[in-house]
């Protein structure tokens, strides 16, 4: 026993010696730097001065420009072509209609920028749109995402920018800065996805359309392409804990161009009516939708005027008409009388 102690003490001494030598070496290496100050070190703040406010790089001011440069674009193309589309197919299995309405836009050289204006029920909407727009638009697509939701944390914001090419936009009042930035993007050929409802539907019915898309279209001349997405609310609606795979339908509408001296509110109403008609077309057929559009009797996306349970009841009825209602028929087993 005493021998072990003797050994450990001897070892400790050895270690201490090594440690001393090391610290001496480091100290001697750092000696010249000990006297270094600013600019090698952070400056100390003098008394009595007003310090400038650090720019807040979160929320609406998040910098996403790097995501539109070549290396990030390449990463995103790979992601989209592979993982994103596979995920969309597995989760949403979309049926796409109305692409022929975009044929004339695709013929133009250079490809014009357009503003896609879909209804919004789920986070799945954005990957769904990215996966179903024509290839030519997909390469040059920016998605306007809620600044307070997607860009409140640095990591989340960067991820959104990389994977979806997201751009921060305020829900309620679009500031001059973000709208100028969006206009600049459109002018340089980037197409935009913007959800006129502002956010996802809280109860399964649509919300009133806000004027962002109309405003941008009027200022830039880029046409608005109304889009109706059916079925995502049942897959991963607001409030659901985890997504439930199902089927969806995406219907593209004819491009809407701004008319001279039409005010934003009127244009916005036109866009909302177009998406409403597309919704009718998706759930019934083209002819019924056109006939009701002529009368102004397409079923409203915002749902009936009721409250409470009747509103939910009507939602279920409406969902039966759409893709969510198409469940696989269970294999009946008929009685076998031998």
């Amino acid at each position, binding site marked *: 026993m005493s021998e072990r102690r003797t050994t450990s003490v001897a070892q400790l001494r050895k270690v201490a010696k090594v440690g001393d030598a090391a610290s001496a070496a480091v100290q001697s290496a750092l000696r010249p730097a000990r006297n270094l100050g600013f600019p090698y070190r952070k400056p100390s703040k003098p008394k009595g001065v007003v310090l400038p406010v650090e720019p807040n790089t979160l929320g609406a001011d998040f910098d996403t420009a790097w995501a539109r440069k070549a290396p990030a674009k390449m990463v995103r193309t790979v992601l989209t072509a592979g993982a994103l589309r596979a995920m969309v197919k597995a989760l949403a299995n979309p049926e796409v209609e109305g692409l*022929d309405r975009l*044929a*004339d836009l695709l013929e133009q050289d250079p490809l014009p920028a357009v503003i896609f204006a879909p209804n919004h029920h789920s986070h799945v909407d954005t990957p769904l749109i990215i996966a179903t727009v024509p290839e030519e638009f997909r390469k040059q697509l920016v998605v306007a995402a809620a600044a307070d939701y997607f860009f409140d944390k640095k990591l989340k914001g960067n991820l959104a920018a990389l994977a979806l090419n997201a751009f921060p936009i305020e829900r309620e009042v679009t500031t001059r800065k973000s709208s100028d930035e969006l206009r600049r993007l459109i002018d340089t050929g980037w197409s935009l996805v913007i959800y006129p409802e502002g956010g996802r539907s809280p109860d399964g019915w649509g919300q009133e359309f806000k004027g962002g898309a109309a405003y941008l279209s009027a200022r830039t001349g880029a046409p608005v392409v109304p889009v109706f997405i059916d079925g995502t609310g049942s897959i991963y609606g607001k409030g659901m804990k985890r997504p439930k795979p199902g089927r969806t339908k995406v219907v593209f509408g004819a491009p809407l161009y701004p008319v001279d001296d039409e005010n934003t509110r009127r244009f916005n109403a036109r866009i909302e009516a177009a998406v409403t008609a597309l919704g009718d077309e998706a759930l019934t057929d*083209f002819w019924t939708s056109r*006939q009701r559009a002529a009368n102004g009797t397409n079923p409203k996306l915002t749902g009936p005027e009721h409250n409470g349970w009747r509103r939910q009841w009507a939602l279920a009825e409406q969902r039966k008409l759409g893709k969510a209602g198409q469940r696989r028929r269970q294999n009946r087993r008929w009685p076998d009388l031998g």
Partner: protein
Amino acid sequence: MPRPGFVLEVDRSTPPILFWRGENFSLEKLPADRSRVIYPPEPLPAIKDIDGAIRHALLHPHGQDPLPSQLFAGMKLTIAFDDVSLPLPKMKRPDARQRVMEAVLDMAAAAGVEDVHIIAALGLHRRMHEYELRHALGDRIYDAFHPRGLLYQHDAEDPDNLEIIGTTPHGEVLEINKRAADSDLVVYVNINSVSMDGGWKSLTTGLASYRCLSHHHNGHTLQNTRSLMGHREHSALHTSIWRLGKVLKDSGPKVFQIETTLNTDMFPEAYSFINKREWEWTAKDRATYLGVSKGLSLLPTKMARKMFHDIQSPHQITSVQAGDTELVHDITLEWVFKQQLVPVEGQTDILTLGIPFVSPYNPDSVMNPILVMCMGLGYLFNMYRNKPLVREGGVIIMTHPTYRDFHPVHHPSYIDFFEQVLPDTTDPVVMGQKWEQQYAEDEWYRHLYRTGNAYHGVHPFYAWYWGAHGQQHAGKIIIVGGDAPTVRRLGFTPASTMDDAFEIASDVVGRAPTITHLHVPSLLVADVS
């Protein structure tokens, strides 16, 4: 700026010229200093805002009130449209008919029209498959109207669904689809690829019965149609049709005719060498040609056929006009000739034609020997105004493999026509008298036409009549590269190579004949002076 068509005088430095040969091509060297090649004009540019132009045409028709004012709730509206025999090759989606029809339906919906029938005006052609209807009209119209039974195809053999409108002073009976005859307004959606179509022809053949068609679809009339594509006054076919048109105008339903013309941008980028002048082929074009022609010769015919029939053409609308049939058609013809007319001086001893893989009567199908004759002597020979390109008694040389192959579902009566009628006679007037009635009244053909996807029993006769003028005009008709017994059954002379063909032709036109080659497939009409 698209260049006009022109006539190339072949000399020693002219490269070999591209000939269609069914599902392949060949390059033939034409003798210098006595051959000429007629090149079609380059494609005109398409309209910039097509949907806008269509709307404009509907709101500002010629000789009639704007369409919305002619539509009212409670009316009987019938929309008839051209069937799958054009355009060739098929158009990229959305098809012109889809665009026009959606615009019309939009206006109909706005006016509150409920009773709408949409009818494929196919005459005695075959019924279209579902995928063909979807391609021409788009999924939206198909899914909205077909399940309701409001979108269907004209049945010329349904006695309950035909109505006689009237008779011309010459005794021709106008008998058309009953629903159309009883409508308040018939809107016709037309695509005019060639000058033969459109005008009164749309309704009086597309929705007609056999009885009505037999007045002008016969050997005698077609022999006196010089030509199918030229001036109407010289065409017995069109003269008769215009008489029937007058009956339709005077006693039939109101007609709102919408006509569109297409440019000749017929082949996508991958096949661009087809439309280019040979001396302007780039290295890429030459490589493509070699790759394509070698590859095709190795592929089984079925696969080569599928490859060609799957081509979707970028051709687009160059004009759209609507309203009174005669006013509209005059404008249409102006545009057709603007795209296709090439002035040519004089006739030659020989006319050479490369026959493509498709005719209006075998879209997505097999080109049987009768259709080779129809395409060559019927369509391509008739691509002239004033005078044929070849002199009377001259020689016509066509290139096509002319295999003895028929599509059993689309062309059942063609098989019997080849086995029974052609060994007996190739004279269109004689076969009309001796054989046509039997084919017209055969119950089995009628059953296949009405319920399957078969051309009507008499259709092979009509295909043969189409070539009657060419058959009568030429002194000898030679097919290069065709199956010999089959070519002989058609009444023509087989040859293995172009040189052999010239050798055989020397019996008729001597040793140094003059030659014209019609450089198709891009459409052209030669204005021969």
